């Protein structure tokens, strides 16, 4: 049964710099990197050293806690560095790519005849498995679990998010293959959740349950969608995959290779011409940002401006994101800013005038717009969390490290992205995403 979900709560933030529907090749990069720090809860154990020669799909490291889960090189070439940070923590493994890519051979196969174990093995060995994540906790799925359903969010309405209708328009066959592979992993349904307000290209996809979502962000986040379609109770597990990663899974079974190609949107008000780039997982930021970004006082973010990670131009693209945002830093003083009308600022509250101009696009910067304060205003978080959850109470339980209460109040149903807007709207400038991740980490530690 197709579900139609209409959400009233939420907030769309109009930022300048949405990518236009134009796809270009990124400039050639010969350096690629995989960053273990991107995977929460993973302790990396290296399998390669500098000078090792690898192919696309050769394991670089595995998770100490779960050795089955391997992380592989997106390209063929030579490992040139293992960069470490404080306390010798591995930051990234850098591979210098060959001119012509060589691929590890994985079992190609007719999905209709493959067994679940075969599919799982291939996914694990090829390093594609980490694209499959689970709720609760928003961590890499455990191959020993059987999820009650698999969710794919076919749209993204975070600020200046990429449009999957554009990204996937020529890759629907592989998307279908990916869906077929995922179907082997669960006895439940595969939910493909779409933006009800738009025409979508996914009508030809079989084997999925299409759900229509109406409403503002965060209606595109997995946590919100799960809670309205098939909520998670204690002990239940749901897996989810990003749409582009479904394509990677599809190619793994149709071609027998780990093909880390990815289309990425370069967005933000500091980008001269926001558009889409053909690139690969782990490529250098420079290869897309070159000559197209106003470098002056800019912040590079992989992902969107709500949940993304701050990075640098000479670092690498992330494993999961389909978007890079570049926005101005807000490191300036503003004379009597708190009292001025400030027509160039966006606010959920009507103490500013942004409600008069719902179509206006803003060049928002990273200024916190005020100092951190004790929590005063109430019912702000509730306005941007369209779930049957009391976000403030849940965050308090996380701060108090009260496991029972966290469980009772719905810690299994949320992750950072679902509460990212709480960070944004908070009058007291409280960090909701950080608190919820700490709470999740505590749950993992205490319950495993």
């Amino acid at each position, binding site marked *: 049964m197709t579900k139609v979900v209409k959400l009233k709560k939420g907030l769309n933030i109009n930022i300048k710099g949405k990518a236009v529907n134009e796809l270009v090749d990124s400039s050639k990069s010969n350096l690629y990197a995989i960053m273990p720090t991107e995977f929460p809860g993973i302790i990396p154990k290296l399998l390669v050293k500098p000078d090792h020669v690898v192919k696309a799909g050769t394991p670089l490291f595995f998770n100490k806690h779960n050795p089955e889960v391997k992380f592989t090189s997106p390209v063929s070439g030579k490992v040139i560095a293992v960069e470490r940070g404080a306390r010798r923590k591995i930051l990234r493994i850098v591979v210098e790519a060959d001119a012509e890519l060589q691929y590890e051979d994985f079992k190609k196969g007719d999905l209709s005849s493959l067994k679940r174990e075969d599919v799982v093995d291939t996914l694990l060995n090829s390093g594609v498995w980490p694209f499959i994540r689970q709720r609760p906790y928003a961590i890499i799925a455990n191959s020993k679990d059987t999820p009650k359903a698999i969710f794919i969010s076919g749209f993204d309405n975070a600020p200046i998010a990429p449009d999957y209708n554009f990204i996937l328009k020529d890759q629907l066959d592989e998307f279908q293959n990916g869906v077929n592979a995922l179907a082997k992993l669960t006895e439940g349904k595969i939910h493909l959740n779409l933006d009800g307000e738009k025409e979508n290209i996914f009508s030809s996809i079989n084997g999925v349950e299409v759900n229509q979502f109406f409403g503002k962000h965060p209606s595109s986040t997995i946590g919100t969608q799960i809670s309205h379609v098939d909520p998670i109770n204690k002990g239940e597990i749901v897996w989810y995959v990003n749409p582009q990663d479904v394509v990677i899974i599809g190619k793994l079974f149709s071609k027998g290779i780990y093909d880390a190609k990815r289309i990425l949107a370069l967005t933000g008000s500091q980008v001269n011409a926001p558009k889409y780039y053909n690139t690969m997982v782990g490529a250098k930021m420079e290869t897309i940002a070159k000559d197209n970004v106003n470098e002056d006082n800019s912040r590079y973010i992989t992902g969107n401006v709500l949940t993304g990670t701050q990075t640098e131009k000479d670092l690498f693209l992330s494993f999961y994101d389909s978007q890079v945002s570049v926005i101005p830093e807000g490191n300036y*003083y503003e*004379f009597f800013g708190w009292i001025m009308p400030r027509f160039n600022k966006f*606010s959920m*509250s009507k*103490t500013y005038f942004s409600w008069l101009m719902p179509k206006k696009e803003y060049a928002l910067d990273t200024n*916190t717009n005020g100092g951190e304060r004790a929590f005063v205003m109430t019912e702000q978080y509730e306005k941007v969390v369209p779930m049957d959850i009391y976000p*403030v109470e849940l965050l308090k339980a996380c701060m108090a490290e009260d496991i029972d209460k966290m469980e009772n109040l719905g810690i299994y149903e949320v992750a950072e992205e679902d509460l990212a807007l709480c960070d944004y709207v908070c009058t007291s400038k409280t960090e909701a995403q950080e608190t919820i991740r700490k709470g999740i980490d505590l749950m993992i530690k205490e319950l495993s």
Partner: protein
Amino acid sequence: MKALRKLLDNIKPHVEKGGKFHALHAGFDAVETLFYVPNTVTKKGAHIRDAIDLKRTMFVVVIALIPTLLFGMWNIGHQHFLSIGEAAEGTMFDFFLFGFIKMLPLIIVSYVVGLGLEIIFAQSRGHEVNEGFFVSGMLIPLIVPIDTPLWMVAIAVAFAVIIGKEVFGGTGMNIWNPALIARAFLFFAYPSDMSGDKIWVEGLSDLSVVADGFSGATPLAVMAAEAGETVTNFASGIGNWSIMELIIGSYPGSIGETSVIAIGIGALILLFTGVGSWKVMFSTVAGGLAMGFLFNVLAPADHVFMNMPAYFHLIIGGFAFGAVFMATDPVSATQTSTGKYIYGFLIGVIAVIIRVFNPAYPEGMMLSILLLNTFAPLIDFYVVQGNIKRRLKRIKVNA
């Protein structure tokens, strides 16, 4: 503007950690952030943040209070000239000027004492000065009788800031509304100066000859005094005041509480900007009206107060002011949405009960709000329990 920034930048190194005048950093921060939105950028979490901050939020409340403040100033003068029998000679400006001069010291004392203490606490605790007192400092002068001695105001403010707020950890942590704590402190510590018919009009207690027919009693006091007598005709108002006068607010009372029109303008500002919770305001009014109607239905013929039309409760005394500016304080109110309806409704109900049945203290709003402040966490607790039960039920349905 540039020169000011330069000055601040020059001073800054001396008050930062390790500087000679580190002991003054909280005060410096307060001044700096008053003039400039700081240059801090996001370090974790969302990279962009809403333009609203606590300063602007509190500032909106202060703006919403201005109509009541201006009207209060006029009314101080108006009542004073009425009491000496010269109201006909005075112009509106005379009234206002008189009130302004009388009111200003109250406001100054309130802010100086309150902000001084806030800065000292911020300094010793190592956090920034919180804007909460922006509002409390304006509320306190508005809810005291005009004749309150300044030293009493100073002590009440100190009590409110220290015992009402800082012992709990400062703004955001307090259990009760600090402004009402100040008012309650005055009422219970100096009852003789806070009650009676003389205190509500400037200079009335020292006046040897009062104008003919003038009484300094508040409408609530008149109502309380009339208990047991025959029912008056409410269509003509209460005592000497017509309904219209009660709505406009030209009667004796605490400075800011009398005019429903001025309070209404403030309420519109709070509701439109979303700074004040409409749920609390709406349900408080609903609670007061509901209880008033209930009394009307149940009233024995000889109980004047119970027979008073329900809507009179909204236009006399501090009910409207409390509903708009006090009950909506987000810190001491309930935090959950459902909780806000319950909290507001009970405030209205209990305020009217106290008014009608407690002749010793005719104004029930203050006590009612403080009482519900106390119970707000309990209300929230049960609302959240409801959410937990829903979640557990879901498991049972699935199982």
